[in-house]
């Protein structure tokens, strides 16, 4: 358990104060990683509580009010405190400057401010949740959210503050990628993870202000009775849904685009192959960031929106699906004739591809409009977005955590155990969420504390799967915590990756690079011309 030999960002100041006042993008990334992991744990506990309540129809462990507060807690925590910052703020902060050969991000102090804004927002939101317990769901639909007696206000304010943290992070990445790329690193050599973070940042900067506005309007409605959304005061409740989904649909891509970037990196690193179609992935990333803004109405097919409007939003949603399909084919093509190492990040990558495809295809089915009328607001939708959020994003988050764990800590983790845990997580996921698809087909609406008895068997199956999933996460937490202290030294590049971030030491020194890196080729070029390919 000797500390990593060379001077690194970890040994540059060991006091808590040196972490709290750091401007180092790597330390900020690590802080975000710790915070988001904590909230992932909390959100997971809330999810388990929900699953336990749903074991039996009628009351199992909590009443309706407690259940309604619990799913609100779960949603708000997972969406705003974990999903949105997880990959961009944690891994993006750590890796983007390393990948583009920069010393830090463009605005290091703003970067630190985004940590504090996030902590402040999270504290206000959670304080509100535990004090008064908002029961609106994470979607805050009016007029319920403007009339319910629970503490909606602090949650709105908390999420509003977190929004600023998101905007600052996005702004920082856009400026960084534009201005701080090392000489010679042209746009078409930029690693795909950086492209993904860049696309995400554009969405963050453009969409999050709309969320801020709509939350502020709901708050105004509650405090002074502004009459914007409440029909009792002459407002329009559907206007809220348009504004909310104008943010929240692109927000889905804030959550899933970075995970696609992680997969692009992992697929290349573990098959020792260049991306099958680099430009298709780049253009589809930008395509998703753009077209994602024109699909929000597909959340409102049952709301009485005009038939033509629903058709237009349905057709646009099909286009977004195309961009995702293109990426899946490119990743699959990357594996072709590669040298594929069965390591935990690759196992998660395969799970990711399958779940993203399956969840995405259900999204395509919703976009046909007619099928949506049965599935809308049922467990089918719950399963669909958990396939994307957990099946895709959490798998990618775990892939990133394992792939870059040696980069960040300088240590190895027990690989066999990690592979076993990855398989466990994938099966736990299937057992949890496939029954929820079937529940949706059977007609079980979402946000139900209680249900007619014919839904029970599938609920029991889902809860069983959730406990398997929880066990898998505990195993991962245990061995990663152990490895932080007792793991063997990893060396600079334990995976033999040609990703640009591995050109600095692991863990990297505070200044990232001692000599300016050069970029004769794009990332992940493994082919050696002198070694001819065998058959």
């Amino acid at each position, binding site marked *: 358990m000797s500390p990593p030999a060379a001077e690194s960002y970890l040994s540059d100041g060991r006091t808590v104060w040196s972490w709290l006042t750091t401007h180092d993008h790597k330390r900020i990334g690590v802080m975000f990683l710790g915070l988001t992991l904590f909230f992932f744990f909390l959100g997971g506990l809330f999810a388990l509580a929900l699953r336990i309540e749903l074991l039996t129809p009628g009351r199992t462990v909590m009443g*309706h009010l407690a259940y*309604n507060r619990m799913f609100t807690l779960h949603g708000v925590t997972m969406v705003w405190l974990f999903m949105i910052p997880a990959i961009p703020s944690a891994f993006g902060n750590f890796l983007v400057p390393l990948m583009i050969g920069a010393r830090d991000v463009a605005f290091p102090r703003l970067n630190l401010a985004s940590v504090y804004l996030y902590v402040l927002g999270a504290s206000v939101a959670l304080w509100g949740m535990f004090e008064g317990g908002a029961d609106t*769901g994470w979607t805050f*639909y009016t*007029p*319920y959210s403007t009339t319910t007696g629970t503490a909606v206000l602090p949650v709105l304010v908390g999420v509003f503050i977190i929004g600023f943290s998101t905007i600052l992070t996005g702004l920082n990445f856009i400026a960084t990628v534009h201005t701080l790329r090392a000489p010679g690193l042209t746009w078409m050599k930029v690693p795909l993870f950086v492209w993904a973070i860049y696309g995400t940042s554009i969405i963050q900067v453009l969409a999050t202000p709309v969320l801020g506005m709509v939350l502020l309007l709901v708050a105004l409605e509650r405090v002074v009775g502004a009459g914007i959304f409440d*029909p*009792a005061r002459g407002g*329009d*409740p*559907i206007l809220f849904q348009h504004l909310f989904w104008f943010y929240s649909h692109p927000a889905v891509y804030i959550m899933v685009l970075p995970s696609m970037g992680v997969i692009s990196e992992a697929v290349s690193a573990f*098959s020792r*192959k260049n991306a099958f*179609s680099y430009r*298709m992935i780049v253009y589809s990333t930008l395509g998703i960031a753009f077209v994602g803004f024109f699909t929000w109405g597909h959340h409102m097919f*049952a*709301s*009485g929106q005009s*038939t033509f409007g*629903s*058709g237009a939003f349905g*057709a646009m949603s*099909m286009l977004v699906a*195309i961009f995702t*399909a*293109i990426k899946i084919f*490119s990743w*699959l*093509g990357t*594996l*072709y*004739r*590669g040298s*594929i190492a*069965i390591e935990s990040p690759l196992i998660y990558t395969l799970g990711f591809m399958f779940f993203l*495809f399956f969840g995405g*295809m*259900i999204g*395509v*089915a919703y*976009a*046909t*409009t*007619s*099928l949506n*009328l*049965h599935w809308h*607001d049922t467990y089918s939708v719950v399963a669909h977005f958990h396939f994307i959020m957990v099946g895709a994003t959490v798998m990618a988050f775990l892939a990133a955590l394992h792939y870059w764990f040696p980069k960040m800590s300088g240590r190895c983790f027990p690989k066999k155990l990690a592979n076993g845990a990855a398989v466990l997580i994938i099966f736990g996921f299937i057992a949890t969420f496939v029954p929820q698809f*079937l529940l949706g087909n*059977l*007609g079980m*609406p*979402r946000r*139900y504390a209680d249900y007619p008895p014919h839904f029970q068997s599938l609920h029991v199956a889902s809860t069983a799967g959730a406990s398997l999933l929880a066990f898998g996460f505990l195993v991962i937490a245990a061995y990663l915590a152990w490895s932080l202290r007792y793991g063997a030294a990893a060396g600079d590049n334990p995976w*033999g990756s040609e990703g640009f971030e591995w050109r600095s030491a692991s863990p990297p020194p505070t200044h990232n690079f001692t000599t300016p890196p050069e970029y004769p080729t794009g990332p992940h070029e*493994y*082919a050696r011309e002198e070694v*001819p*390919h*065998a058959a």
Partner: protein
Amino acid sequence: MNELLRRLFFLPEQGSTFAVKVDHLHYVLLLTTFAVAVGIGAVGIFFLVRYHRRTASDPTPRVVAAPWMEALFIGVPLSLFLLWFVLGFKQFVWVMSPPQDSLDVYVTGKQWMWKFTYPGGPSAIDRLVVPAGRPVRLLLTSRDVIHSFYVPDFRMKRDAIPGRYTDLWFEAPRPGRHLVLCAEYCGLDHSQMRGEVVVLPPADFEAWQDAQRRNLPVAALPGARTPESMAVRGERVAAAQGCLQCHTVTGAPHIGPTWLGLYGRKEPLEGGGVVLADEAYLTESMMDPLAKVVAGYAPVMPGYHGRLSAEDSGALVEFIKSLRPPRPGVTAAEEPVYVPTGR
């Protein structure tokens, strides 16, 4: 085949003409998804086995997709998706366009119950009775927050939104019973906001509706008697006794004063003075209407003393008490004109 696939995918009974159509598209989509997913999985596993890493420095070739491959990867899913969209949207347009000859029923969502009102006939709570083989159009609104009227057997839902109307139509080909659920989160008892659709053979439906209109209990028919509150009973009595021919419940003055917001109001009297419209005054006005006539109205109302039972007059008072603008600031015109805002 239809039955096999329906059970395989855990879909409920096909209770409407739309359900049959949409399920077929459902099968096509899900089977294609399964086929392609299995294909992708098989290719992935084949690559994993065939190109498994043997040494740490296995050489790999540089493979880049040719433009025709990229075009294929974009073109094939795009044409498939657009085909599905065209098929689905055709069904969607069909199901969003109610036929001309449909039977209208007004539906009001309220935390946490459904109220069904027939334009010419009775109203009922949580039980919608419709004839088989005839299109039915529901006009939905809400008295408080957003609800969503959902019948899984019909593969159909539509939001009920306060302050506006949405509509939904269906045709149930066979008699039967179907669960109604609320699909839009609406607060504490969201999960208890259930009802049922009872589909009767057309002749039985006519008989049921006649019986309801004549206010006769028909024990043999389902849906004949719902447990009712006094206000609901009062509404029925008001219709049966002809009160509503002179008194509106919409806020509009007619031959007599409107009942909307009447309870608790201070009414100026013909010949001077003011009276508070409380239980006592309302009951007095039924029994001895000419004693205190509200200013501006002709003394034409017949007395109901001896013609109304105590239960019925109490029920009427309760009904009038329930008729108030639902929240401060809502004008009567925003409320459904034809739906008594009961309960």
